């Protein structure tokens, strides 16, 4: 079985390959035209999604993303192919798409942002609910409106700093925004400033910002 870490568009000899990948196997390059897949070979299927494997995979991807020569399209964790032939076919079949995405992520980093509504507005709701259903709805709308409006504005400002932006699925009721932004490394500070500014503007809004990441969320064209 062949484990896939990512796809690059620089020559194999320029790739910063770490000595050990998943399960201690040594990553190597498979070259097909202008594309290089970074893989490792395993005798058995790696079915156990162990935390160690995730870290090993992420570390190889990070190293590839950090290379001078440019970018990497990370493979989803757990991607594997049966044969080396299948790796060549993958690179051949999707060559144009891979090259286009690599050109886009080249030299850029991903920043993750999550905005959440804070505070328990429930007592106010309960009161409003007692007075009238209409007041209750208005109060609820106002509450969503304030933090939600700030989150929308933050999203607009961060999008303006970005080459591309992806909205990710919201996971919790309190979440107002979950997004990834593809930015120049030099723009990361500006992102942090925008996040700090929007947090200062309301006690009801908390914003978490992680990164810089390899471009995990930007491997496909926006749909």
């Amino acid at each position, binding site marked *: 079985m062949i484990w896939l870490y990512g796809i690059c568009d620089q020559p194999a000899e320029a790739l910063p390959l770490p000595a050990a990948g998943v399960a201690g196997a040594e990553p190597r390059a498979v070259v097909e035209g202008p594309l290089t897949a970074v893989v490792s070979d395993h005798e058995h299927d790696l*079915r156990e999604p162990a*935390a160690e494997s*995730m870290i090993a995979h992420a570390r190889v991807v990070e190293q590839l993303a950090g290379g001078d020569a440019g970018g990497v399209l990370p493979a989803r964790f757990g991607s594997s192919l049966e044969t080396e032939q299948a790796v060549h076919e993958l690179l051949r079949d999707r060559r144009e798409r891979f090259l286009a995405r690599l050109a886009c992520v080249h030299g850029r980093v991903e920043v*993750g942002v999550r905005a959440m509504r804070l505070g328990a507005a429930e007592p106010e709701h309960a009161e409003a609910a007692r007075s009238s259903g209409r007041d209750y709805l208005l109060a609820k709308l106002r509450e969503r409106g304030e933090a939600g409006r700030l989150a929308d504005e933050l999203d607009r400002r961060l999008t303006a700093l970005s080459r591309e932006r992806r909205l990710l699925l919201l996971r919790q009721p309190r979440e107002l925004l979950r997004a990834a932004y593809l930015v120049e490394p030099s723009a990361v500070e500006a992102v942090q400033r925008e996040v*700090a500014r929007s947090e200062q503007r309301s006690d009801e809004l908390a914003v978490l*910002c992680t990164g810089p990441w390899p471009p*995990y969320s930007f*491997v496909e064209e926006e749909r």
Partner: protein
Amino acid sequence: MSDELLRQRDVALVDLVDRLLAGGVVIGGDLTLALADVDLVYVSLRALVTSVATAEEMGLTLPAMSAR
């Protein structure tokens, strides 16, 4: 390490796992990880979160930026 820093690390780990499992190039029907295994990953992650130092020892940087 302060609680705040630890919390940031945890958030970064959750974000990393999200990216590993939901991001990245999908190569078709060859995903080793079956959907049913995802729960298992989160179990593993909880174990991992308790030992972030291990992740660092393994050479993985966990990027977390604070806005505060």
